[in-house]
């Protein structure tokens, strides 16, 4: 009996051994097998229309490929991707900004692009397509892990009509400094008692490192030291910035706040609710689609990102770059098709520009007549030349949240900037030390 049991156990172990064996025999890639690719991307009605059309063209040329294109609210994407990847269930293709995707790249969740997969001879042939620095956030240990979908910097949109009604000439009186922004906002704001019915200007609140960090950098401050070890450099710059935000909030001059309607949305609607807002080139396509009358009226203009009167260096609003990335945990054949689809879609950069006003940072596009013909493209390029990519790191997402909490403490709770600075420094230093 015992002998039979031993034989049974040995046979079972022998049968189960292959399951625990490490390494898989190499198999040649079968690119003709049917492949279903899942894309997760953020909502943008104009872009969705274009990308669905491009996907149809791609699948018509490659009938073994089918694509499930899914859109989600942009604010939800980071959490969805984090949950999906932590369960090893990430989509095959996804897009996110540099601040979010860096942690996916660093943690080995994304696929390194093999140039041969998309018919290029070398990585240099790919990097040579793009403006310097545009691929920084997706470069890691000699590989390239993403391709840029949109390159967005913030410039200032001005409603000329509201300026006119306030006795101002927008062409001459538009704000050049942050001090001007506050002074003009005090002039243009309308209130019913304490309740604001029209804002002069308001910030783009969720984008803390994109919108606010350049303001601090203009004054000589830094978020993290050059060696990456110390949080918050240049206290004077930070204190001035937090004091400005305290003045902006309801407990200061009451000029706006994050619980009001998003400034760019209010600006496009042109219902006398805001005179100035910040956004990128893409905003013009949205304005054209939401309010074509206003878009065609000539009653708005775009001017450069303001600087402090006593700025130590000229820095424009940081550039957010959204990349398309491929899941590195899917079979290689699927990765090949995913990269081919991404490359195919992004090769239509002029379509993205003309139909969605999305700018890809390619030399080809920037030199094109199509780009030059976009209204105010020269203003955006002028600012881009003075800007860097939005801060990205494996902790950049978390740092953005700490920045948000610090600005809220000064602006909404009216906390002393010195106290805010102490808490903010500790929170960011904690994140640095955890790495």
């Amino acid at each position: 009996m015992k002998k039979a049991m031993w034989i049974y156990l040995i046979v079972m172990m022998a049968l189960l051994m292959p399951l625990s064996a490490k390494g898989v025999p190499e198999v040649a890639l079968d690119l003709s097998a049917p492949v279903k690719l899942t894309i997760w991307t953020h909502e943008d009605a104009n872009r969705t229309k274009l990308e669905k059309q491009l996907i149809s063209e791609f699948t018509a040329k490659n009938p073994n490929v089918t694509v499930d294109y899914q859109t989600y609210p942009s604010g939800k994407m980071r959490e969805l991707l984090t949950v999906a990847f932590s369960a090893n269930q990430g989509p095959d293709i996804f897009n996110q900004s540099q601040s979010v995707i860096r942690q996916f790249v660093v943690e080995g969740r994304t696929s390194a692009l093999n140039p041969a997969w998309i018919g290029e001879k070398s990585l240099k042939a790919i990097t040579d397509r793009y403006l310097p620095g545009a691929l920084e956030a997706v470069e890691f240990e000699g590989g390239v892990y993403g391709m840029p979908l949109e390159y967005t910097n913030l410039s200032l949109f001005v409603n000329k009509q509201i300026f006119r009604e306030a006795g101002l000439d927008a062409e001459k009186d538009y704000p050049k400094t942050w001090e001007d922004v506050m002074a003009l906002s005090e002039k243009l704001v309308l209130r019913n008692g304490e309740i604001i019915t029209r804002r002069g200007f308001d910030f783009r609140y969720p984008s803390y490192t994109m919108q606010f960090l350049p303001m601090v950098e203009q004054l000589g401050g830094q978020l993290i030291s050059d060696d990456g070890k110390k949080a918050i450099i240049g206290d004077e710059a930070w204190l001035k910035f937090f004091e400005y935000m305290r003045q902006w909030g309801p407990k200061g001059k009451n000029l706006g706040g994050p619980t009001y309607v998003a400034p760019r949305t209010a600006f496009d609607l042109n219902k006398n609710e805001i005179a100035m807002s910040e956004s990128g080139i893409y905003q013009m396509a949205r304005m054209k689609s939401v309010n074509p009358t206003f878009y065609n009226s000539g009653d708005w203009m775009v001017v450069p990102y303001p600087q402090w009167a006593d700025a130590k260096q000229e820095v424009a609003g940081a550039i957010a770059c959204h990349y398309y990335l491929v899941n590195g945990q899917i079979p290689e054949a699927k990765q090949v098709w995913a990269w081919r689809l991404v490359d195919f879609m992004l090769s239509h950069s002029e379509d993205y520009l003309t139909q969605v006003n999305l700018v890809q940072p390619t030399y080809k596009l920037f030199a094109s007549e199509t780009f030059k013909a976009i209204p105010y493209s020269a203003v955006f390029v002028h600012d881009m030349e003075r800007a860097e990519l939005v801060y990205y790191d494996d902790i950049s997402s978390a740092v953005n949240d700490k920045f948000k909490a610090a600005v809220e403490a000064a602006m909404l709770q009216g906390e002393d900037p010195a106290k805010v600075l102490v808490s903010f420094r500790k929170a960011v230093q904690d994140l640095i030390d955890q790495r």
Partner: protein
Amino acid sequence: MKYTGIEKRKARWGYVFVTPAVVLFLMFSLYPMLNALYNTFFNMKLLSLKPPKFVGLANYAYILTSEAFWKSMKATAIFTLGAFIPLTVFSLVLGLYITTRNRGQKALQLMLYTPAILSSVVAALIWMLIFDPRGLGNAFVNFLFQTPGINHNWLTDHIMLQISTITIYVWKYIGYFTIIYVTGIAKIPQSTLEAATIDGASAMQTVMRVIMPLLKPTTMMVSIVAMLNSLKSFSTQYLFTQRGAPLEPVNVVTLNIYNTAMRDLNISRACVMSFLLFFMMMVLTLVRMKSSERDVTVY
């Protein structure tokens, strides 16, 4: 053959019937809880593919000495007390009011219960509109107190934001607890109430001396459930902070757990906070149950 009595056979069927529930509990409740407890001893990062390192009690030491955690505990305590006390008291009052009405009982119950079936997300979005500076909240309060033009900063002021979240929670769940009280009151034997009337008890005396003591088990159940639900509250605070409200006043422990795991990607520290919250809820429940066991009234 071994003898089996009818009781024993019945008990066997009992085991069969409870097995699915026990299996589901083990898989979806106990295992995740034990797994979370195990994770607290490692430095596990949500997206990392590297094996986590054993760090012993370092995560506990970090959390228990973290200022942010204790601020979260304070926010949780304020929210729980602010929500659980009115929920218990007002649902009892409404329960008594409904059961003493001759007409319109069902309509009142329906009206009160309706918010409970709304998803928390929808409820928060409705209230976001009400609390907008130009919304109904300011208009109503300013009309009531004849203070035109005052912005009550429902979503930006530290205290007002806490009041706003508590208001939504009480509005949403008061109907649910009222229905439980209505059921509890309906269970009180009619003969006991009639006896009180024959003995000359006034309405107030009947409520205070007969109904309230007999409602103790219901009150205990309502207070425990309301307290535990308040401690676990998350979605309103989450949505408000997503829409621009400041984090600190409403950074309850559940929201801190979520942000630590999903934003900071530090799943081990999130597990420590989850375990501490679980422990706190268990202790509070036991204390509440013990305090009610002492004076049970039976007629």
